[in-house]
């Protein structure tokens, strides 16, 4: 297992720069998730580590060795693709063995490694089948098996779960987590789904438009987002952002704010119903969703501004009802006019 270091990475396609100076250190054995909206550059970064994209400037080191000029196969990486990229005309066994064959590994050794990996992933009974005879989940496991077989220094995952249905996604997510602890492998995982990021990562890297917004553990990002972007990205439903300036400004009571506060952030799960005296914010309920274990209320505060509140399922609330809300001031987030977090 190896560490990975990205230093001053820039990527340009023609005249368009898509990655603007990324610096990142990944420790050996860490599970790092690159997360962000479409086009943020996370896949591009992953592919640069893999060697599938040229690095415009900067260096990438794997295991303290600069790999900029080294072909993918010799970097010690293995990749699991979003569409699995299994060779359709080869059996599962041949798919998993292909990389080893290219590396001129001897046949007995290939047999051994493929069978071992198949055991770990419980696909031993499919070794003779063709990919088209397998289900999505099975194919995914073969793709992972193909990566394991090469004993790489770093595992790379490019949105591996997006093609699976919801139930399968949860199941495979758990398997990947188990795999990580089993192999103690360095893993770089790209996704746009923040739930996957939160559940799998040791460290999350939030990317936006080619720069890193924040790096930290899931809990750090949840509790202490450095700016509005990270605050809104992590956590579902999204954190409420309450504007204090401009046309949509809302009046807040009973709350001490630091100076220069332009917006307040509050997570829906932290909002509770209040009486008029302790109320911090008031509004009208426009829509209620009952999810069984809690209610999601969409509350209109002023003009078009809407707040989401996750409240107890037994609460007595109705549509168009005027409600009063409050939350623990300790867990408020305050942002200045540059959307940076202030305390």
């Amino acid at each position, binding site marked *: 297992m190896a560490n990975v270091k990205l230093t001053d990475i820039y990527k340009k396609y023609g005249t368009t720069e898509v990655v603007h100076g990324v610096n990142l250190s990944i420790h050996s054995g860490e599970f790092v998730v690159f997360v962000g909206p479409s086009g943020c550059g996370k896949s591009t970064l992953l592919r640069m580590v893999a*060697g599938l994209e*040229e*690095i*415009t*400037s900067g260096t990438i080191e794997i295991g303290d060795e600069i790999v*900029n*000029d080294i*072909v993918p196969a010799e970097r010690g990486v293995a990749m699991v693709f979003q569409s699995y990229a299994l060779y359709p005309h080869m059996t599962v066994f041949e798919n998993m063995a292909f990389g080893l064959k290219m590396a001129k590994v001897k046949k007995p050794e290939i047999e051994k490694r493929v069978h071992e990996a198949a055991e770990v992933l419980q696909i031993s009974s499919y070794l003779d089948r063709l990919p088209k005879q397998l289900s999505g989940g099975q194919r995914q496991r073969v793709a992972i098996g193909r990566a394991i077989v090469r004993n790489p220094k770093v595992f790379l995952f490019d949105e591996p779960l997006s093609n699976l249905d919801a139930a399968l996604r949860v199941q495979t997510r758990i398997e990947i987590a188990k795999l990580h602890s089993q192999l103690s492998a360095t893993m770089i995982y790209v996704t746009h789904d923040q739930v996957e990021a939160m559940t799998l990562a040791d460290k999350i890297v939030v990317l936006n438009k080619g720069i890193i917004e924040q790096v930290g553990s899931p809990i750090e990002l949840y509790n202490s987002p450095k700016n509005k972007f990270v605050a809104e990205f992590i956590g579902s439903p999204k954190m409420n952002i309450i504007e204090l300036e401009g046309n949509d400004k809302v009046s807040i009571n009973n709350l001490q704010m630091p100076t220069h506060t332009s917006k307040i952030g509050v997570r829906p799960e932290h909002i509770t119903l209040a009486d008029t005296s302790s109320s911090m914010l008031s509004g009208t309920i426009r829509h209620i969703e009952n999810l069984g274990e809690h209610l999601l209320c969409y509350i209109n505060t002023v003009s078009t501004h809407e707040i989401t509140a996750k409240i107890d399922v037994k609460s007595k609330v109705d549509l168009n009802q005027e409600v009063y809300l409050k939350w623990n001031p300790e867990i408020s987030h305050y942002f200045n006019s540059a959307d940076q977090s202030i305390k």
Partner: protein
Amino acid sequence: MGNNKLFKSQQRTGWLMAAPATLLIFFFLVLPFLMAFGFSLTNQRIFSPNPTEFVGLHNFKNMLSVHFLTVEAEKDETGAFKLDNNGNYQFPKTRKFTRNNPDYPHLNKTREWMKFDVGKTKKFYVLARDLIFMKALTITILFVLITAPLQAGIALLLAMLINQPLRGINIYRTIYFMPVVISMVVVSVLWKFIYDGENGLLNALLHFFSVGYFEPVDWLGQTDTALGAIIAMSIWQGVGFHMIIWLAGLQTIPVDHYEVARLEGANKWQTFSYVTWPGLRNTAILVMVIITMQAFTLFPQVAVMTRGGPLDSTQSLVFQMVERGYGKQDIAGGSTISVFLFLFVLSISLFQRYITREKIHG
């Protein structure tokens, strides 16, 4: 900086892999074509005692030269029109103007191409220096203008006919496509016999089906039927090919489009114009482009069946190209036509591309 080493290996491998095909195309297609360009600017002959001279655009000027001439009826000394024994006006022969007439140097060596009456006392002539080329050009264009839409249209009708879920429909598809796998040379020989004026099968069949009304026609021997006969035969041979292309296009139209039309109560014509035809747009473009390009290269039929006759009524550009270049060993002449044909077809292709370009850009 960057992984230039990785990129360089792609550069080398890329060239290496493309090299065989590229070199072959360069030596056996591009190079001879450039040579044709070169030859068209000379007076090169395959075997000639004289050295070859560079003549610039002389060949092209000669080939494309067209002049107009208005001729008045002959008058006598008093200025009145002379009449012959039958009371008709008399006109000087064109050769008076086209053979070394010092008053008309630009008309020297031109030949009469078209003639129009202007009232009773004047005639209007169109003269061409390379008369056969002009005929070849106009006949080729005529061939394209008739064959292309006709073949495309019939192919579309056949495709719609074949697109039905009838049992055994594939047998018909197989039969309609059959002429395509037969060589045009074979087809030409066969049809030459079928078109024969005396023993021809076609005449016999028409005679039968018209219950004796129809008289035998020497299809390939008469100037007014020869080209039509070649057109009909060419369409017979080629329509199956385009039928299949239309068929493929028809089958990519989503079934639910038809279902929506049915739900909305559209009749056959409406279904065709609102569902079928829009879905075939790309196919239509492809079919027309291919047919047009193919039609311009009209050659084997003419070479085998009519050799350009009767009386140059089935001349074609490619046939003339081969006649001059290979038959008469006039490389320069043949090449001039090659270059002209290339430029002509190129401009038409570009024009076709232009008028069918996507007007809405996503």
